[in-house]
């Protein structure tokens, strides 16, 4: 992938000192051996096992039985499963909500920090809190806020005379994904703010100074000085937010378990539910590989943008 360059061996020692290559070789092997062992046991072996299991109509633990062999049947079923594509579409919806929040709100907040608005140090920490809270805490906080009748949102709205205070924020399919999406964005905004803020620190001061001296409006300054400098950073943030929106589902799982029905079930959560709700281990494994391939098709594009931003930072 694009990051290969970052981790590929550094050029060999060119200093001509008489290092002892056999001793280096021994130490090198010794130092990476535990890492390779761990990757073997908890990455390669699970992948191999999942591939084996994906060829069977497999529902239990232990070795799959020979007459449950279905070949690529699970893969054919996955590709024709409308719920898989619907769940990927839900990932896209979450990605869109998170992107809007991270880029728009994140930029506005970052610019306030960059302007060193009064109290910016406090604000930076205060706004950052949602990003570092354990995801279980975030999910439970908002599950309570969204609770009908006694939850903070419903009871406050009722007190203000808006609505009757019985909205099922997480119980209505149409509302649930936006309610969860808002919380997800709430945790990503601080992260975006921080990265964009760091990006803004590279704006040359002379440039903003002279723009101000020439009487450029705030809007012009933003458009012609700030935006060009932070554009690569915005791409980086966008890439990271999209990747995050496809990768994790713990927040969604604790808030709604993917419900009501399948209305908040994302792709990775769909494989999880197939595996642990229906014990369809074989089918879930095939789904996992299909999703990994789909992501592998999307991610190189995203990674390219990511690298563009990372180089500049």
């Amino acid at each position: 992938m694009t990051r290969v360059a970052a981790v590929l061996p550094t050029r060999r020692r060119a200093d001509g000192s008489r290092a002892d290559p056999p001793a280096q070789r021994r130490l090198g092997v010794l130092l990476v051996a535990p890492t390779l062992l761990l990757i073997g046991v908890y990455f390669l072996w699970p992948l191999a096992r999942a591939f084996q299991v994906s060829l069977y109509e497999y529902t239990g633990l232990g070795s799959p039985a020979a007459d449950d062999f279905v070949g690529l049947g699970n893969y054919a079923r996955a590709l024709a499963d409308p719920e898989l594509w619907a769940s990927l579409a839900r990932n896209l919806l979450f990605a869109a909500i998170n992107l809007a929040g991270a880029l728009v709100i994140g930029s506005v907040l970052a610019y306030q920090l960059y302007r060193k608005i009064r109290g910016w140090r406090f604000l930076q920490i205060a706004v950052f809190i949602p990003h570092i809270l354990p995801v279980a805490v975030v999910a439970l906080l908002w599950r309570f806020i969204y609770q009908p009748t006694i939850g903070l949102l419903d009871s406050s709205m009722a007190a203000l005379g808006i609505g009757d205070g019985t909205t099922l924020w997480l119980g209505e399919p149409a509302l649930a994904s936006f309610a969860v999406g808002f919380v997800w964005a709430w945790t990503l905004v601080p992260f975006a703010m921080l990265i964009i803020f760091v990006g803004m620190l590279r704006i040359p001061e002379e440039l903003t100074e002279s723009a101000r001296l020439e009487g450029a409006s705030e809007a012009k300054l933003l458009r012609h000085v700030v935006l060009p400098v932070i554009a690569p950073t915005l791409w980086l943030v966008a890439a990271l937010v999209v990747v995050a929106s496809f990768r994790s589902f713990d927040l969604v799982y604790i808030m709604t378990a993917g419900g009501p029905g399948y209305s908040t079930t994302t792709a990775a959560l769909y494989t999880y539910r197939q595996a642990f709700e229906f014990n369809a281990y074989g089918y879930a494994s095939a789904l996992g590989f299909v999703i990994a391939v789909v992501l592998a098709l999307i991610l190189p594009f995203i990674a390219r943008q990511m690298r563009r931003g990372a180089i500049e930072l």
Partner: protein
Amino acid sequence: MLGGAFIWVWAFLSLLPLLWVAVQSLRPDIEFLVDPWSLPSLDTLSVDSYLTAFVEGEMAAYFGNSAVVVATVVALVLVLSLGAGYALSRLSFPGRRVTSVLVLAVLTFPGAILLLPMFLVSYELGLLNSALGLIIPYTTFTLPLSILLMKSAFDALPEDVFAAARIDGCSEWRVFWNIAVPLVPGSISMVGFLVFMPVWEEFLWAFIALRDSERFTVPIGLVFLDDNKVLYGYNVGFAGMVLAAAPVIVALLVSQRGFLRAVTAGAVKG
């Protein structure tokens, strides 16, 4: 300016849920059920909910379990990533390229999809429902980013240091452990942060791998506590949330710069 007002509103929105819950955790449930925005009165404030959460709600045990898991993983990742990062940066040895490729593969693979396969392997290894069954996978999946960060720290060191040490007759091990490692303290604390945060909050794998409540880590224990609010009351669940959030908030307040720098570096490298 509009943006200036907006950041204060957003900061308020960021702090409000946790603050509200923190205040509420000290009051009887009936008070917020009557009026969620009523102010606390001194006569009814009490820390009983925290005692209940700790003792009957078993939060004390969950904290102990999490502490063991987090401390072990952080220590293991630090040692292993220093070693592997150094080897990839400074040594030539067979398997170097394979190691690089595998590290990147783990880093880029969507981990959530691995939950089921990892469950199958853990079952075969007899590691389900045990602390070790958390420690090994957590170490495996926090290692790649840590190795990348350590490698770039070692890459940045001047070659002369190593050449001089070798000319002085240092063994390869001593060049690594006594010369190179003490030169990257910043990266050591950064990797410490970047491992502590995700491991402390990890929910899904622990939820799948653990069965007995006496082995629960804080995140699952917390959800369990909240599910039992009929038994303990809302304020005990609220107390649990405050307790689970406390370590990361303390870490943020104590080391703001280190924390923010770690998040930035993690984002750019990861």
